[in-house]
């Protein structure tokens, strides 16, 4: 599908995700006030009030624009990594179990259901509490460890979501006669999965993976808001968490990260929808 053929909303989504990815890769080299420096002369500057701080500052004098740009990297990377790893593990499990059926399928499906029954936030809270908390409250847990634990818990959340999509798609594709035909020609199961199942199942996984990226960004933000995410306003979620007390007198300091986060989630959903519609038209031609 060509970019030109997309609707205006889809075009905007693609452009916005492009901007976000630009912030992820090149954000730190954009000449802006340092996100960690607070400007004592400009605390609580409003939106578009100052050329120096185009999106204003929060009540501590942190520049919102540079913070939002800096926040893109942890928010997006955590999300992309957990969806990537979780998607890979989940779809591998889903495809193999659905193709083989029998006991393996039963076990894998039960595991998926068990994990799905635990809310993502509860799982994240529990894992951070167990794995990324120091018994001595005076010693800070290193941020890197927290990030790894957060990625781990989000990965666990993603595995059954994408795994079930892969399983469902595999169940329907592996009943097609071309799979039986491949078997009757003497193709090995591993070859059948790689040549005939995976290429047909992938579009469905892509479509849902994009939706999942949006969901994971929100979950990561929620964890930050609950104080178990990344601290100190590094990601979008934790920016929101940091300024949540200022909603009354500096609402823009919350609105800016919220809008950025919301736009990103919507754009991801939209991209997922584009992929899904492509998948549908392919199916429709069968």
């Amino acid at each position, binding site marked *: 599908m060509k970019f030109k053929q997309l609707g205006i909303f889809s075009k905007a989504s693609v452009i916005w995700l492009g901007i976000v990815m630009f912030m992820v890769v090149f954000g730190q080299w954009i000449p802006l006030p340092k996100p960690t420096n607070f400007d004592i002369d400009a605390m609580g500057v409003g939106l578009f009030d100052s050329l120096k701080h185009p999106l204003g500052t929060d009540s501590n004098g942190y520049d919102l624009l540079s913070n939002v740009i800096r926040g893109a990297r942890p928010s997006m990377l955590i999300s992309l990594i957990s969806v990537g790893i979780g998607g890979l593990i989940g779809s591998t499990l889903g495809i193999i179990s659905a193709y083989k059926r029998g006991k393996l399928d039963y076990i894998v499906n039960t595991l998926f259901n068990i994990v799905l029954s635990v809310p993502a936030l509860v799982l994240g809270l529990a894992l951070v509490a167990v794995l990324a908390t120091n018994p001595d409250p005076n010693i800070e847990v290193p941020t890197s460890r927290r990030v790894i634990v957060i990625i781990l818990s989000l990965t666990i959340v993603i595995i059954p979501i994408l795994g079930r999509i892969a399983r469902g798609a595999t169940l329907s594709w592996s009943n*097609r*006669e*071309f799979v*039986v*035909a*491949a*078997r*009757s*020609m*003497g*193709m*090995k199961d591993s*070859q059948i999965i790689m*040549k*005939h199942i995976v*290429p*047909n199942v992938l579009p469905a996984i892509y479509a849902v993976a994009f939706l999942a990226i949006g969901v994971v960004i929100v979950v990561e933000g929620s964890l930050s808001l609950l104080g178990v995410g990344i601290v100190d306003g590094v990601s979008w979620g934790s920016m929101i968490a940091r300024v949540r007390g200022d909603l009354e007198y500096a609402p823009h300091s919350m609105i800016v990260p919220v809008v950025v986060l919301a736009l990103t989630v919507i754009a991801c959903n939209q991209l997922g929808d584009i992929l899904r519609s492509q998948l549908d038209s*392919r199916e429709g*031609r*069968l």
Partner: protein
Amino acid sequence: MAGSGKVHMRNTGNTVLSVEDLVVEFALSKKTAVQAVSGISFDLIQGETLSIVGESGCGKSTLGKAILSLLPVTSGSVMFAGSDMTKIDKEAVRNLRPQMQMIFQDPISSLDPRYTIRQLVSEPLEIWSRGSAEEQSVKVDELLNSVGIDPTIAGDRKAYEFSGGQCQRISIARSLALEPKLLICDEPVSALDVSIQAQILNLLQDMKERYGLTMVFISHDLSVVKAVSTRILVMYLGKVCEIATPDSLYDSPKHHYTHALVNSVPIPDPSKKVARVILEGEPPSPVDPPSGCRFRTRCPAATELCATEEPQLRDMGSGNYVACHHPRG
């Protein structure tokens, strides 16, 4: 009806396929199972076409797949190329696969929509590394030409760009790529328009002569079967009713079920009025088949005997074998 027995088996030297007492069950739950195929025996001599006919759900397709070991067989034996397919291990079965190929009912669904026609037809050659890439491509062109598909125009298109009849031609080309001895056609024309059916049947007939194939032709349509077969096996609820040559089957069906089937074939002449035999009721559930003869619940000639004793196949002369206590004269 619905007999077991093996009087119809011919023990000649050039038997290609010999199926004995084949049973295929599907578990419904831990305790119950459906017997889709229950104790079918037949053999197939080099160059023959055996047609298997019967109504939907009688186990025809299951039988076809079980012969190729595409389904687990519960009991019985399938002798092919000197080995019992049901006893040898998976890899040994796989090594026999090039000699036995199958054509499926739904021509479009039997071709993966992601690959081009050329890729699909060369797939079996790649699996078994037959020849170099160039030799394979020559072979693919030759196969496509022989089924009436122009490789230069069609070769690089995907399956969904073709009609059902064209897809079936492509499937036939693919199934012949490995030059099999045995070809199982599972309702190859039932998804096609009548005008296309004849073309595909002729093509199969040509290919049969060209490659010296032995065929199993599964169909629910007696008028289709008549033209192609050497022998016809009529199935009802997983059992054999009658095995006969086409002529004797059409002229004097011995089994009451066969009679009803033959009678239901439309005659393209409105002035001819035939007393139709119409079967009452539905086929019984294969989960709980009737005792004795399985056809007795719908049979006009059923007696007490039919409920108690299962009829065995018996020789009625002129190549006709029937499993019925009260065969038609």
